[in-house]
């Protein structure tokens, strides 16, 4: 019980820390924030009268010392108010929700195909260790881990869009536009997960109880489907949870390379235009999602495995 309490306190401290780091990034960003806010507010104005800038400074407390300014902002964030975009004047939430769909579609599609591929490859490799399939799995995993995602994207564009002209290379919209980006990300997921799944399967096969079952006359395939898989699932799920950050990074790179709309390209665009409220929101989104996913993975692990004793958590 005390452990849960410490964990919960830790979670809040970390989220506070994320907010503080994010705020510091924006606070020390170069450029006049009042000017940027004024432009967002009066997009058609040719010049901003000095009085308006002074009013904005007062309204957003831009001249407050760091800690007061931060606490004021953090209070608004806790109430769910992330402000309005400097460049479009829309609420940050609304812009975010508008882009979320494309990214979710891309990541879920790639996860499904990538994990399926990894699962088939890894289970075949672990079922027949040392075979050609096993070696191929190792090679695919090693090369995949060293492959720059954007280069893989370029190669696929070169093959399927430029030479074969089967699929569109850039943009969003139809299902055909989704194929190449999802394929790239899926190959990436497949490469990284094949390696892990394979080693989990091999570990599970080497468990002492497997030998007992084998001696009792259970067939090799029965052992695999009824025991190895189940035994390997727990660590595999943990790793997939932890790899969420890589998936997000992959999605950002893929969206930018394929010029797709989505959270990743929204993030890059907001950074380049120094649209600070949007940048802050997205940065916090990525970080908080990561923390929440990891905390829930750990929670599931703790609930499902009584051996995980206190004090093992980070």
């Amino acid at each position, binding site marked *: 019980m005390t452990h849960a309490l*410490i964990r919960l306190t*830790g979670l809040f*401290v*970390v989220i*506070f*820390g*994320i907010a*503080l*780091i994010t705020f510091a*990034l*924006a606070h020390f*960003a*170069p450029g006049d924030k009042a000017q940027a806010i004024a432009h967002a507010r009066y997009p058609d104005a040719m010049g901003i009268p000095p009085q308006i800038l002074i009013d904005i400074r007062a309204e957003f407390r831009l001249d407050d010392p760091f800690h007061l300014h931060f606490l004021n902002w953090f209070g608004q964030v806790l109430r769910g108010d992330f402000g309005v975009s400097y460049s479009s004047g829309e609420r940050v939430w609304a812009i975010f929700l508008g882009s979320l769909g494309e990214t979710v579609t891309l990541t879920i599609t790639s996860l499904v195909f990538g994990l399926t591929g990894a699962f088939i490859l890894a289970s075949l490799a672990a079922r027949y260790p040392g075979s050609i399939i096993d070696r191929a799995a190792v090679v695919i995993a*090693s*090369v995949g*881990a*060293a*492959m*720059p*995602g*954007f*280069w893989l994207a*370029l*190669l696929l*564009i*070169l093959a399927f869009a*430029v030479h074969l002209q089967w699929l569109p290379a850039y943009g969003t919209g139809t299902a055909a536009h989704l194929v190449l980006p999802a394929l790239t990300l899926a190959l990436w997921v497949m490469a990284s997960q094949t390696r892990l799944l394979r080693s989990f399967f091999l570990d599970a096969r080497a468990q002492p109880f497997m030998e007992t079952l084998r001696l009792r006359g259970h067939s090799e395939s029965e052992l695999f489907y009824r025991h190895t898989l189940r035994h390997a699932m727990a660590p595999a799920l943990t790793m997939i949870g932890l790899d969420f*950050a*890589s998936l*997000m*990074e992959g999605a*950002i*790179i893929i969206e*930018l*390379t394929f010029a797709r709309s989505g959270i990743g390209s929204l*993030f*890059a665009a907001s*950074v*380049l235009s*120094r649209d*600070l409220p949007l*940048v802050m929101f*997205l*940065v916090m989104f*990525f*970080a*908080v999602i*990561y*923390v929440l996913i990891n905390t829930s993975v750990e929670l599931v692990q703790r609930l499902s495995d009584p051996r995980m004793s206190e004090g093992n958590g*980070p």
Partner: protein
Amino acid sequence: MRAALRRFLRRLSLAVTCIAGAVIAGLWLTPYDPAAADFLDRLSPPTAQHWAGTDHLGRDIATRLLHGGLWSLGLSLTITAFGLVTGTLIGIIAAQSGRIGDFAIMRVTDSFFAFPELVAAVAVAGIFGPSTVNLVIALMIVSWMKFTRLARTLALTTSKQDFVTQARLNGLSQARILLVHILPNILPSILVLGTNSWSRTILAISGLSFLGFGVQPPQSEWGAMLLDGKPYMQSAPHLMIFPGLTVLISVLAINLAGDRLRDLLAPQSM
């Protein structure tokens, strides 16, 4: 195990020396300047004169790749070394700081750890202006946390070992125990993570440069070269094939060396 490890380290340093020697010799021997344009010989496919062809300004790609290697490998090594030293130090301090100090240090680490590397690097490099210096600063900011976590865990387990208790009973000071017993025992695993982190940093640098957030063209960094070559994908695919291949091979080589190091240091061979 020690003999095997020593042999591996000898081979590794030999390989690194050979590669570094080849790069320097290549840079010295090549008749081309990485920045010299030649508009009469643009987009040439690989030939006897230009082993990897020329780019859209007629610059020799092979020379630029060698030059870019100094950038990619050098910057990534600097960043990783910074992360390794800082992170390990903070991790060891956390492990020695008692419950409250440890809690505080690790929650700060977790806060930094929560930002995916690429997100943090894009945000910092983007907001403060894309440049090589800002890229390096951005990647350094996110380079240390995994070392802190590993060093802390290892330091905590190692300090519970019997031989550390013996050292304490023998009257060694805490600082001396850290220096002679704990640090040497956790360093191998830290180095394995270091090779892993090094190859990831190479990918990050080339990726960020490709996206426009890092080393800027006309600098001959590999990712920046890919960005340069992207518009000529159809007419001159070698502009993007060779830089990508170079990244792939470097990262693969470092990863394989790291895997081998990990196998050699695995508990069963100790």
